[in-house]
């Protein structure tokens, strides 16, 4: 008598990849726009990125229904915060909120792999990377999703982030300029698209800096 297994899963993986890179006075957040299910493409034009606050942008890959639900919860929480405090949430505060929100569903998680990017209190770029249940840390760059295994080693090589275990704490942000960082991100996706079937179609890039926020698109291979 073998144990019966579930023949229905509440989750699905819609694929896709997210990347974020922090600079001295900017932050680049990027994600592809392909949404898939199994070996099928559901759409070539779905945004995985949402701007939660003035200085916080969230990119999430994984199960997009859970991602959407997570985005709505965070947006509602942010509105409450603004009513109470008369100001927008800072990126580090949003980072903690995201962690708590994810852990709240520890026993039925949001199937979302998140990268939060933005500017910290000093105006420096900051990137926070998460697992599905809210474990997070601040890093200089990060990649999540189906193409992350292809992108992360490349970013490690190019951006040489110091280990967070080293003391004294070293600055994790890259000394690259904004345009150099954007080019780097474009290269990452162009490469990941070649070998990861779930990544492609179009790349959406958001650049956050002192003068505000900017959006850019780049075509990717559609096969």
């Amino acid at each position, binding site marked *: 008598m073998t144990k019966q297994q579930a023949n229905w899963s509440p989750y699905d993986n819609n694929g896709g990849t997210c990347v974020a890179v922090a600079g001295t006075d900017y932050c680049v957040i990027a994600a592809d726009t392909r949404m898939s299910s199994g070996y099928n493409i559901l759409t070539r034009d779905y945004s995985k990125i949402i701007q939660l606050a003035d200085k916080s942008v969230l990119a999430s890959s994984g199960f997009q229904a859970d991602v959407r639900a997570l985005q*709505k*919860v965070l947006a*509602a929480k942010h*509105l*409450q915060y603004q*009513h109470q405090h008369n100001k927008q949430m800072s990126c580090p505060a949003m980072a903690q909120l995201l962690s708590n929100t994810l852990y709240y569903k520890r026993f039925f998680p949001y199937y979302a792999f998140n990268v939060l990017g933005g500017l910290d209190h000093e105006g420096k770029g900051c990137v926070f990377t998460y697992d599905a249940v809210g474990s997070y840390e601040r890093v200089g760059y990060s990649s999540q999703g189906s193409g992350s295994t292809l992108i992360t080693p490349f970013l490690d090589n190019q951006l040489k982030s110091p280990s967070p275990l080293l003391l004294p704490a070293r600055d994790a942000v890259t000394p690259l300029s904004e345009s150099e960082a954007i080019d780097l991100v474009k290269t990452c996706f162009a490469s990941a698209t070649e070998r990861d079937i779930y990544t492609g179609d179009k790349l959406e890039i958001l650049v956050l800096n002192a003068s505000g926020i900017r959006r850019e698109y780049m075509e990717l291979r559609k096969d």
Partner: protein
Amino acid sequence: MFRNQYDTDVTTWSPAGRLFQVEYAMEAVKQGSAAIGLRSKSHVVLACVNKTSSELSSHQKKIFKVDDHIGVAIAGLTADGRVLSRYMRNECINYFYTYESQLPVGRLVVQLADKAQVCTQRSWKRPYGVGLLVGGLDESGAHLYYNCPSGNYFEYQAFAIGSRSQAAKTYLERKFESFMDSSRENLIKDALFALRETLQGEKLTSSVCTIAVVGVGEAFHILDQETVQELINEFEIAGEEAPVAEPAAPDQAGVAGPAAPDQAGAAEPAADDDTLAAPGDQGAAPMDM
């Protein structure tokens, strides 16, 4: 209104069919400092007088943003007003979460009114001691509502609540027919004029009042002090000039009252006169405004 044997509980009717506790709650609204609302086809303006309990303290917040498309001005127990504002904010947030569209103003005021009614029918509760002027925009246009502690609500073209509000109401009754097609600037001007009426001689400056606007393409926001002072100077209504100095507006002959009855509820006490400078104003308990 005199103390009698039927006014101890909100759940006790008087032989004349009145709930005295509810009426006493509406008294609390009349003791608060004035709040005024006006609306046109496309905008709603809320204005209120800032009363401080002493020269040393800051003034109480009487206008609250509820959502981008709704704001509220209160008179009475400010603490009750704050709590109800929080309720309204949450309702708007939850509605948007579910329907991804703005909560219509008419729906919000009904929910608010139902919440107030509950407190008039429970022996362990008391009515909210605050009147709310809810101004907002939705698909059916600009709206101004008045919610009172009894659980009643009415829609208005213009209304005033709080102490000395009768003076403002008299001004509004004369001008209200022109409000629907008023421009945003004229609406604010009329709000300032109406506000000045309640000050009865005191100088109108931006430190004494707060103005908030919501309109088509304009999210609800409170105007900052400089803007308000500029508007006051522009309309030359500071100082103690007689109201004769108003700009030439077509004089409204028939003094038809505002669109809905002033007083909420059938059995309203007749005795109270808003224009009497309530001595209770200055000696009001700190929680009252």
